[in-house]
């Protein structure tokens, strides 16, 4: 909690601060672990630990990281499904963590979500028409005929047929259900959609259909999307900019193309190299990291990645690297970001043990 990173990043070229739709500043979302006598809070899981980032209007922002890195907690914090301990989330200038019930209601119109699980996220007792129009019924005083027209327009738009409106979720396949979820999210004409792993439960041949649909609708409705996913090739394809999280920290942020071509944080490099490649579309040396992600209950001092990093030196344990602009519009949190070159990558799939590096000798998990 000591190191508070600089919250304001300059948005990408050609944009001004007015283009920022969601401005997250020094967000901390912690979960208490209660134990012992009287059920006292004894420890905190620092799921999101001082993250600042901006999402622009109409931008597709990808957020990647492995399980437990805090990407879903960040998404849930924006939706106020998790309660952050500190920091701000400004939506069009208004801090949604402090907003009154009334303005929160207005914000909830503008911020919608698409869930991961197409089976669990639709009420099995509601037909498709009620599912899609539920938000309208709550938020809008729309005439019945008008609402019906809108719902029919939406069902066409997501590639389903009108007769599907009277059916129930169990009658649909996973891909179709995800389309229903998308129609529901669009019903209130939001400005921003939080999509947490929207295609990861789908078969490959269906995943590409849903990705295409999301891309089309994003353009058509001018939506900003926070796209949270673990599949790096999907994120690269879909996103304009990509943020990488590790142990509750944002460790790198850049244009998608730039990030994939020239990662400046060793973790990002390792993550990209670890993704299996089906078509040989890129050639890169595989980096196999030793060990596992440390427990967020007890993150390492200094840089969160140092325990697995082949570049780690003394300074990495002493000082947490700031997320800084390494190149124009490319931020990375690494003391050696400028020095990270292909020849610094570990040789022969084995992390090199440099004199002060703990990689490779540290137990994978704290006892």
């Amino acid at each position, binding site marked *: 909690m000591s190191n508070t990173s600089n919250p304001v990043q300059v948005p990408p070229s050609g944009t001004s601060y007015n283009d920022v739709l969601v401005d997250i500043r020094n967000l901390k979302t912690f979960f208490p672990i209660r134990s012992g006598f009287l059920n006292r809070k004894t420890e905190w899981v620092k799921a999101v630990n001082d993250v600042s980032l901006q999402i622009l209007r109409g931008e597709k922002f990808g957020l990647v990281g492995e399980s437990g890195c805090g990407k879903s907690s960040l998404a849930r914090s924006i939706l106020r499904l998790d309660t952050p301990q500190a920091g701000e989330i400004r939506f069009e200038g208004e801090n949604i963590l402090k907003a009154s019930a009334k303005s929160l209601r207005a914000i909830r119109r503008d911020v919608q979500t698409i869930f991961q699980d197409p089976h669990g996220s639709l009420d099995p007792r509601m037909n498709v028409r009620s599912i899609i129009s539920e938000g309208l019924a709550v938020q809008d005083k729309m005439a019945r005929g008008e609402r019906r027209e809108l719902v029919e327009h939406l069902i066409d738009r997501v590639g389903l047929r009108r007769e599907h409106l009277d059916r129930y979720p169990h009658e649909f*396949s996973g891909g179709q259900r995800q389309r229903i979820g998308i129609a529901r999210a669009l019903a209130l004409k939001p400005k921003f959609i939080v999509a947490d792993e929207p295609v990861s439960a789908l078969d490959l*041949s269906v995943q*590409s259909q849903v990705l295409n649909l999301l891309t089309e609708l994003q353009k058509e409705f001018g939506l900003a999307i926070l796209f949270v996913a673990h599949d790096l090739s999907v994120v690269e394809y879909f996103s304009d900019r990509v943020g990488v999280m590790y142990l509750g920290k944002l460790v790198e942020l850049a244009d998608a193309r730039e990030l994939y071509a020239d990662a400046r944080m060793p973790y990002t490099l390792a993550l990209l190299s670890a*993704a299996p490649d*089906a*078509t040989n579309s890129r050639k890169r040396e595989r980096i*196999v990291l030793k060990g596992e992600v440390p427990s967020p209950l007890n993150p390492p001092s200094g840089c969160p990645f140092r325990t697995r990093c082949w570049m780690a030196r003394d300074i990495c344990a002493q000082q947490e690297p700031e997320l800084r602009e390494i190149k124009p519009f490319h931020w990375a949190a690494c003391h050696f970001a400028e020095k990270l070159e292909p020849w610094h990558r570990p040789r022969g799939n084995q992390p090199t043990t440099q004199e002060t590096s703990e990689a490779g000798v540290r137990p994978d998990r704290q006892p």
Partner: protein
Amino acid sequence: MVKAVDGVSFHITTGGRLGIVGESGSGKSVTSLSIMRLIDPPGRIVEGEILLKGRDLTRLTEREMRELRGRELSLVFQDPMSALNPVYTAGAQVIEALQAHRTLSNSEARERAIQLLRMVGISAPERRVDEFPHKLSGGMRQRVIIAMALANEPELLILDEPTTALDVTIQAQILDIVRGLRRATVLLISHDIGVVREICDEVVVMYGGRVMEWGQVDQVTRAPKHPYTRGLLSSIPNPEMRGKPLRTIGGAVPNLLNMPRGCPFRPRCKQAVRECMEMPPLESKPDNSKVACWLA
């Protein structure tokens, strides 16, 4: 009657690495369970044979089969969270696998278990051997399960989606271990052709309970011959496709209860012709690959 797997034939040579890829409902897991003879009733193998070094597994009694499982055939499941018994230590479960098929003293078995855990990349195995599964992460549990599967140096190691529940950096570690296994004959089942490509020499592409294509991994990924394989490969997002719509296969994976007649891919195939109402045989092509398509 649901035909989960229908007329599937392939073989693996000793020491070979064969991958089966397919989407949900393609029959890839049912194929692996059939080899292990672990199909739950009322499901059963209706016809065909499964030959392990010339011996037909479908004709063995349940007792003979039990002898074989864990000794000559091992299966690693997808979910590392539920495949270990929570009330026994990791070591006890590896030891059980060892002693089930061999007479080993407790201390010998323990020694061997520690060796196995070390082999699958578990650090401090002397300590880990006495830990309970809940203390281990998903990646660690999957290593313990692989150690159990390797305990008796099986003829065939079947890995059914071994890394699907794991993060990519942990997946890379597990794939590294599998790649390093000398001598083992591996059958890897995965929905991810990238994972298959990491490990296997050959790949069988399944769809709707049938084999669509079978060949060298490099050949199949570089120049797929079956329209389904082509469609599948081109639906994978890749950097060159940025800003352009992905190519898609229309429609959805067929329901096993309602399989189309003939080629199962026919309703989604852009090239389908009248002949496709009949299932094409898996035919050898000049480059030794095999394809089940009238048009290939």
